């Protein structure tokens, strides 16, 4: 009943062919429980970003299995996969999360609009999501009018405006100063407790990873070690 919200089983991902083939992932097993916050760390090129792309269905595995919210991504057609990305999985990247031509409020409401939610309801839910991340003013201004930290908060609001099982975050504090970065990761770390959302954070900053329930270390395309999860009973153990 506590099935993992994200499960990678013996995942291999290669780029290129023959002598130029690169194995970005070389047999990764990872299970993330509902409401678990997992940080993935490792040197550049260890495969951590590839792992995130596969988890979000942005790329296909070469072999192995990726299950998100109980569904095998490999079994989904393009349309279902797009739907999965709209409804179950949210993203927060290092930068360029927001569309510059939309206001803060419109950016947050975008996933609802794509789902066909009515204007009034979309607006109300977006305001709630923005309040949840602590952005309550100047919502009709454009992303460029906000500081980097505020922009990330707005991006997180957009990720939670739809009830998501999983949020994938790729260096969301990478472009921020230490204190602002801390506050963004602290906000992320509060999501599992408040909304039951699981989070996979890719970072190379130990201080940001320390907010997570579990830190997973990768090297050369494999998971080499991990800290014990602080999330109680769970399928987290399935990763080992």
């Amino acid at each position: 009943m506590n099935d993992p919200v994200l499960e990678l089983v013996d995942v291999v991902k290669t780029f290129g062919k023959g002598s130029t083939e690169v194995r970005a992932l070389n047999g990764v097993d990872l299970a993330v429980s509902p409401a678990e916050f997992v940080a993935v760390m490792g040197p550049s090129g260890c495969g951590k970003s590839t792992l995130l792309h596969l988890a979000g269905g942005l790329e296909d595995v070469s072999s192995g299995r990726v299950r998100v919210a109980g569904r095998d991504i490999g079994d989904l057609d393009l349309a279902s996969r797009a739907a999965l990305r709209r409804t179950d999985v949210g993203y927060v990247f290092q930068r360029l999360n927001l569309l510059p031509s939309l206001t803060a409020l419109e950016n947050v409401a975008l996933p609802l609009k794509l789902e066909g939610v009515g204007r009034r309801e979309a607006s109300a839910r977006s305001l709630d999501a923005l309040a949840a991340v602590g952005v309550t003013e100047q919502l009709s201004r454009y992303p460029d009018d906000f500081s980097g930290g505020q922009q990330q908060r707005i991006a997180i609001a957009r990720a939670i405006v739809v009830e998501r099982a999983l949020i994938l975050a790729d260096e969301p504090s990478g472009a921020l100063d230490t204190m602002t970065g801390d506050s963004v990761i602290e906000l992320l770390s509060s999501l599992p407790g408040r909304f039951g959302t699981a989070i996979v954070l890719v970072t190379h900053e130990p201080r940001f990873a320390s907010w997570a329930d579990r830190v997973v270390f990768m090297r050369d395309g494999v998971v080499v070690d991990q800290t014990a999860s602080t999330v109680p009973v769970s399928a987290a153990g399935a990763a080992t």
Partner: protein
Amino acid sequence: MAVREGLLALLHEGPRHGYQLKTEFEAATGGVWPLNVGQVYTTLDRLERDGLVGVSDNEGQKVYSITVDGVSALGAWWEAAPVDEPPPRDELMLKVLMAIERSTERGDAHAMSVITHQRTVLHSMLQSKRRARSVATTSLAARLVTDALVVRAEADLRWLDLCEAQLNGTPTRKARS
């Protein structure tokens, strides 16, 4: 240890009793640097011997105050480079260097596995510090002390990353692939 100078800094704000110095020292250091009263009085005796504090009697209680020499000693301390004892985790450096030595001798992966394990251990420590920090409704001093521990652990982790990267670059490691 800089307890002497810490006491001088407090006395620079005005005369104080020994016990008062103990509690104020502990509050200023976020409760992570407990002093026993005996230690406070021993230190005060030495400061008095060195002419850095004076003692007077106030209704049977000893009151300590900073002297002119004490003020100039304190001034010099604010400006001097901190001479810390090596932090306890310098054991980490020894451990990794010894492991690298062994791996170089035997051509095995011992060093890499030690680095990997130590990194996990440090991260677990960092996580628990973070949790302590985030639940703490404690003083600014306590939060800053935790921040200091966090950035030191970060420094250790960065050092492990460098060790790993350098180790990966050595001929013995490359010969493997």
